[in-house]
């Protein structure tokens, strides 16, 4: 009862503060529609009587039960759903996307969307063109990377070479540009400080190679050459040439360096056999000076370091290149991933209702409920309209118990990132700059300041506008072994998994490198792979320039 009153009050407050967006039709006494969704990615299921979910339902008259991938691959789960013809109303198929499209299991959204302006205006015309299927229809709505206003990211979430602030401080905050510089600093530091204060030996550099996380070892060569994270290849923006980064001169130099440092004892001898858990455990002790990784991948380790009060052992990103003069492109503007998105399935009885639901979720009121929560409970507003959180609210936001019972972000439904429509607040607390500065330690502030930066992102070159094809990984992620290129892609991973560690550990680097090249060229049809990438590249360029896909 209490809850309903609360929601009603909220609905009224919000109706009063109606913003630019189209206000959802207020749900009076009508029945709340219940939809089902399956997202083929891991996620957290929330309670049935979740507070924010009910608040949203009270506002827009609909809710959706999200279920997530458990114990299967996305392809298995999606394959099962198609074979059994038991579709939920909404689906995010993830890597099973092409199977859903194949099966004709989605409803064409563009046939309905004139009535749902929030959906139609969610992307620009040219962006929608990228999403269009071969038959010209639009079946899915991308959920991520759609920026309203400007990107407020303060943390570089993606890949970089990371280094602890204590190393930089000790070395007097030198300019570190090349891989060479980076290892020099680490070597010098470790020579002067072989152990931490409590006597634990420092580890110079560690590499995670477990399963799909082996990008920490293998994909640095294209970054070192100054290219952005296309994931699977280098694409020369001038000549549009597609280049395999696995065998370039830079790749050889990079692995030679790792080999050299391995034998010097700077590279952790357990690098190539450690599990993800062991890697995080090592990082958590604060004894690892540096590594190459994506920030989200080692974030929990960094939290553990902070918890112990070892603030000078947290990391800042460095945009290394192989030799001076190359411009680095580690930080990219958030990219629209068109290979995936939310679709309405043919199992949905109420397509219009489902579209209305998505449409309403995009309104600012609901967006705020999704990502900030309930005003006065999950966040506060100051006199300037700026959202902030108390200590307790911050703690709640990290507690699973609290989130399961109270928060509902419908995270795999479309959302705006960047700024709220009020122009004051970021879309979610983690992107609110004021929230960010509060959490920054003195050591990090000092380090950032020494490099003339205020945020982690400013440690790197500012992102440029993305190329029309970016990112190519959204294509390679969906390659299957049915094509020769896809076969090659799977084989490449297989060979690299086995031979790159060998190359790094070899007594005779040259011979090991030759062996790697031999097996690589022998087992992988690189030409077929590059050919398929090139075809997709030109398709994307054509789509972006307004030509039809046909």
């Amino acid at each position, binding site marked *: 009862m209490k809850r309903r009153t609360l929601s009603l009050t909220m609905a009224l407050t919000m109706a009063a503060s109606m913003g630019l967006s189209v206000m959802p039709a207020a749900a009076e006494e009508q029945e709340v529609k219940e939809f*089902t969704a*399956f997202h083929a*990615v*891991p*996620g*957290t*299921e929330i*309670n*049935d*009587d979740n507070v924010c979910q009910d608040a949203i339902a009270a506002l827009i008259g609909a809710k959706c039960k999200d*279920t*997530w*991938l*458990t*114990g*299967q691959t996305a392809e*298995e789960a999606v*394959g*099962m759903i198609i*074979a*059994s013809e*038991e579709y*939920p109303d909404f689906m995010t198929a993830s890597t099973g996307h092409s199977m859903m499209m194949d099966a004709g299991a989605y409803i064409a959204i563009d046939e309905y969307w004139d009535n749902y302006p929030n959906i139609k205006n969610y992307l620009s015309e040219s962006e929608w063109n990228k999403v269009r299927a071969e038959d010209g229809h639009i079946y899915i709505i991308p*959920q*991520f990377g759609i920026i309203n206003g400007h990107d407020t990211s303060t943390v570089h*979430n*993606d890949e970089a070479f990371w280094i602890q602030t204590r190393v930089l401080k000790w070395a007097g905050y030198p300019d570190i540009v090349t891989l060479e510089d980076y290892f020099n600093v680490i070597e010098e530091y470790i020579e002067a400080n072989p152990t931490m204060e409590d006597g634990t030996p420092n580890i110079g550099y560690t590499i995670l190679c477990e399963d*799909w996380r082996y990008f920490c070892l293998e994909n640095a060569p294209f970054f070192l050459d100054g290219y952005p994270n296309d994931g699977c290849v280098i694409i020369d923006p001038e000549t549009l040439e597609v280049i395999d980064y696995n065998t370039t001169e830079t790749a050889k130099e990079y692995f030679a360096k790792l080999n050299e440092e391995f034998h010097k004892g700077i590279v952790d001898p357990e690098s190539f056999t450690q599990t*993800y*858990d*062991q890697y*995080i*455990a090592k990082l*958590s*002790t604060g004894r690892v000076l540096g590594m190459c990784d*994506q920030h*989200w*991948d080692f*974030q*929990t*380790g960094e*939290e*553990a370091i902070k*918890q*112990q009060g070892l603030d000078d052992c947290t990391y800042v990103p460095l945009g290394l290149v192989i030799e001076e003069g190359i411009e680095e492109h580690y930080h990219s503007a958030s990219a629209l991933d068109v290979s995936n998105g939310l679709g309405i399935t043919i199992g949905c009885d109420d397509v219009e209702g489902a579209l209305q639901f998505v449409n309403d979720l995009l309104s600012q009121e609901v967006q705020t409920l999704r990502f900030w929560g309930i005003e006065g409970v999950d966040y506060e507003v100051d006199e300037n309209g700026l959202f902030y959180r108390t200590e307790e609210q911050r703690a709640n*936001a*990290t*507690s*699973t*118990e609290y989130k*399961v*019972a109270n928060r509902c*972000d419908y*995270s795999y439904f479309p959302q705006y990132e960047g700024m709220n429509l009020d122009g004051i607040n970021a879309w*979610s607390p*983690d992107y609110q700059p004021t929230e960010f500065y509060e959490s920054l330690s003195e050591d990090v502030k000092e380090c950032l300041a020494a490099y003339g930066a205020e945020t982690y992102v400013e440690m790197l070159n500012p992102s440029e506008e993305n190329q029309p094809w970016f990112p190519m990984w959204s294509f390679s992620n969906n390659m299957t072994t049915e094509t020769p290129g896809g076969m090659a892609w799977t084989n490449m991973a297989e060979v690299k998994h086995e031979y790159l560690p060998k190359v790094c550990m070899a007594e005779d680097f040259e011979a090991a490198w030759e062996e790697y090249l031999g097996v690589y060229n022998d087992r992988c049809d690189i030409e077929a792979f590059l050919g398929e990438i090139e075809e997709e590249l030109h398709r994307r360029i054509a789509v972006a320039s307004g030509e039809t896909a046909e």
Partner: protein
Amino acid sequence: MSLTKKRHCMKRSKGDIAFTIANTLILTAFVVITLYPIINTVAISFNDGLDALRGGIYLWPRMFTLQNYSTVLAKDSLLTGAKITVLRTVLATVIHLSVTALLAYVLTQKDYIFAKHISFFYVVTMYVSGGLIPTFLVYKELGLTNSFWVYVIPGAVSAFNMLVMRTYMNGLPDSLQESAQLDGAGYLTIFVRIIAPLCKPVFATVALFIAVYQWNSWFDAMLYNRMKDEYTTLQYELMKLLSSVTNQGANAQTIKNSGNQVTPTSVRAAATVLTSLPIVCLYPFLQRYFIAGLTIGGVKE
């Protein structure tokens, strides 16, 4: 005559003493080795997640917390899951055991002309499988999907358990059955009255196998009752929780906003302790049936 008394009077030989010492040493080592992972898991389950990441927790938590447990217990559907799990475990154990035992008994009849054929028919089922999708379609046709019965009806007759019980029954003396047959008793009567009571040790063993299997099952709940919350099981709920904390890193988007205090390792430890506890408690009740020396004695003629 009482041989037992006599044995106690006998002097124990040197060999016996040496054996006892060696045996004690071996089993002690074994206990230490197997107990370690258990205690370690319990210790981690009570330790702060972030702190546990550093490693170095062995037998005792370093930073005590109940947060892992409260995380595991946070979800409301856990209760439904627990109810269904108990129900399926009890029901399936009773049904599977009795049905499979009956088949095992039938197949021990030495002059039964189809015994060999049916044995072969079932042995093959251990090594063939139609695969996930065809099996799903069959269950769907039978109306077993989106229903509780999918936990109980498939697998009710298991070749493995049948063979285990058949082997045991084969070891029973023939004379028991023969004398009953002379009295005019039918097969079913003999099975219920005479054979079954003698099979307590093997029944206890097989019941344990079935119960543990049922208790730990989650894949069937996920596959056949994905959208049916009312038929969720305890283990499925925990699997959902674990996969949400474990694989969050697999997607940059999901981890961006998480900043969890709990970690997969610690939550998994807590979930393991919580779910193993009930089934482990069941053990002592069954144990007395299959530890020789704890029972009154072997099968007496």
